[in-house]
């Protein structure tokens, strides 16, 4: 769960990390009011859940309230990497003598926390890391290990923080590390940490990503107004519909409706369609052990998509059960009806029960099943993939 800059800075402030005193504006008029009150040059910063904001023109420096209104109006018209600008963070302008980088993240390959620092902060930090790795300082920690001031002092020294600011920088680094652990973060970054002309250190930006799976144990975040949010850019109406239904779904530009079981084969099944010359119309994941209602909704999304010419169905019951799967498909057929050709394969846990449910339903109402070609474990999934591509070609004619 990625936080907005202003949310990250709220956490920074609570942790004692110095940030500028910022204010939010949700409209150009609000921006005007804030700047009129402040009576000093400010930065208007678009709040979006993506990087590259600066390069996309998402930050404007303005000297007065009228200018602020004009620039804010422009900013609110921007969409940065698919994210429309809905809020601005307005901060007093400050001078920059030097920019540092500080970050904490997880080294998954080595199961450690890593603190990273550099004397060359800013947007080109990754380039620095690649071209001049010696300019990047790293220190790894076990998850249970505290960071001490001396660890942080060493980092501050190595990235070239002026000696007389060493203890202040160390306090920032220790706080950042504690914050990382306290909120179950996946990433916290201060980029840049700025040294101002007044010889003060300040976090000029924040990037905080928390572990969605651990948010449940941080009710204090909700108290700060920080809640789970959709982190993608703008969604298509179908993606919005899927999100409301709790189904991970992504529109693609092909013609085959993908109705696979499990995230793993959800990804690889798409490759298979490509290998056989087709193009998927979507990504979709049923989640673990889907109930019949959810299965039915997944099919609705595909059947109602005009781009879909044929549906590829695959279910290998594991944590999910074939009986529930069969019930879901039948629920869809009865309540909604299938208008596209569909080829599917079903096997795995409870397959006998699933097949029985299918057969009984088909015997009762055979016309519901007329577009479905049904297979079991005897048919390799490659054949199903091929057949889906054929059906889509036929349907496309």
């Amino acid at each position, binding site marked *: 769960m990625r936080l907005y800059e202003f949310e990250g800075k709220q956490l920074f402030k609570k942790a004692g990390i110095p940030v500028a005193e910022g204010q939010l504006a949700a409209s150009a008029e609000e921006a005007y009011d804030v700047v009129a009150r402040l009576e000093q040059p400010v930065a208007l910063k678009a709040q979006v859940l993506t990087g590259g904001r600066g390069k996309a023109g998402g930050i404007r420096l303005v000297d007065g309230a009228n200018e602020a209104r004009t620039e804010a109006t422009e900013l609110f018209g921007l969409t940065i990497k698919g994210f429309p600008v809905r809020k601005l963070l307005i901060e007093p302008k400050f001078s920059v003598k030097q920019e540092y980088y500080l*970050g904490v993240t*997880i080294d998954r390959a080595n199961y450690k926390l890593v603190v990273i620092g550099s004397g060359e902060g800013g947007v080109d930090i990754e380039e620095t*890391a690649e071209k001049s790795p010696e300019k990047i300082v790293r220190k790894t920690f076990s998850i249970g290990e505290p960071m001490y001031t001396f660890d942080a002092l060493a980092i501050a020294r190595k990235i070239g923080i002026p000696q007389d600011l060493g203890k202040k920088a160390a306090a920032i680094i220790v706080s950042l590390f504690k914050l990382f652990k306290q909120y179950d973060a*996946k990433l916290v970054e201060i980029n840049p940490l700025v040294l101002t002309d007044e010889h003060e250190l300040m976090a000029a930006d924040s*990037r905080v990503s928390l572990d969605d799976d651990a948010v449940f144990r941080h009710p204090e975040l909700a108290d700060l107004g920080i809640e789970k949010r959709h982190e993608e850019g703008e969604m298509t109406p179908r993606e919005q519909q899927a999100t409301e239904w709790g189904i991970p779904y992504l529109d693609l530009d092909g013609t085959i409706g993908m109705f696979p079981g499990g995230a*793993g084969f959800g990804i690889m099944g798409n490759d298979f369609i490509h290998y056989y010359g087709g193009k998927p119309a979507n990504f979709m994941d049923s989640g673990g052990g889907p109930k019949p209602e959810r299965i039915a909704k997944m099919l609705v999304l595909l059947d109602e998509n005009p781009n879909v010419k044929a549906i590829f169905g695959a279910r*290998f019951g594991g944590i999910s059960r074939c009986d529930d799967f069969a019930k879901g498909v039948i629920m869809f057929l009865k309540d909604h009806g299938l208008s596209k050709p569909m080829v599917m394969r079903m096997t795995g846990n409870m397959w006998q029960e699933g097949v029985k449910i299918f057969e009984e339903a088909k015997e009762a109402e055979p016309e519901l099943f007329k577009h479905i070609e049904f297979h079991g474990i005897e048919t390799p*999934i490659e054949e199903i993939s091929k057949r889906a591509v054929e059906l889509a070609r036929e349907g496309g004619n």
Partner: protein
Amino acid sequence: MAILVDKNSKVLVQGITGGAGTFHTERMIAYGTNIVGGVTPGKGGQTVAERPVFDTVEECIEQTGADVSVIFLPAHFVKEAAIEAIRAGIRFLVVIPEHIPIHDMLYVREEAVKHGTTVIGGNTAGIITPGEANLGIMPDIAFKPGRVGTVSRSGSITYYVADTLTRTDYGQSTCVGLGGDPVLGSTFAEILLKFEEDDKTKAVVMCGEIGGVYEEKATEAISRMKTPVLAMVGGVFAPPGKRMGHAGAIVEGKMGTAKEKLEMLADAGAHACKTFKDIPETLGRLGV
């Protein structure tokens, strides 16, 4: 022989009294898995599927000699349950639940390394040594005893690979679900090296996917192995995933696309496969 579990493994189920715990315990027993007991704190003294339930893993081990555990518990109980199992002396632990907090898994991994315990998961379908033991949620129908090992991040891919090996009569020695979570109890490299030491395993199929770092970290192990490794990586036609900030790029290097991962694995000596049917073809060519 097999890796990690066989018919002699004495298996306990943590969370045996829960819905999924009970359901899958009965399935595992039906398969012939040697389930010796279960643990649910506060439910000691009960019985599930004719197996005794204990309050602590320690007591279960004392009474039943259990050496392997499967966890079926809500995600936020996993950290403590896993640490309990590891400290009590469980040598192999299967973590079925998904959505385990990442920091929790780092604690679990640290404890596991300290005690020499192998952990797979979270978010794994489990592990099966066909004909001997089935731990987790894998569907029996896909598997039969044989000579190829598999290790995969995805449950469904495991089933399709096994299904293919079953149909072509190679069968499986052991199939390991590495798990789908971002931080896993074991890496590809660690499981591959276990297969390397197993006499019964004549080849290994490893199935990775776009994202993460565990495929890249397996190359060194593959280059050292005598047992042939076949590799599939899902997501060749998927859009690139998201980066974890600058720090992610600095720590984990370039974003591993499926194509790059597959190339790296092939460079290390793995035999790349595109679809499942490439697997028996490759095995045939290798004379496995």
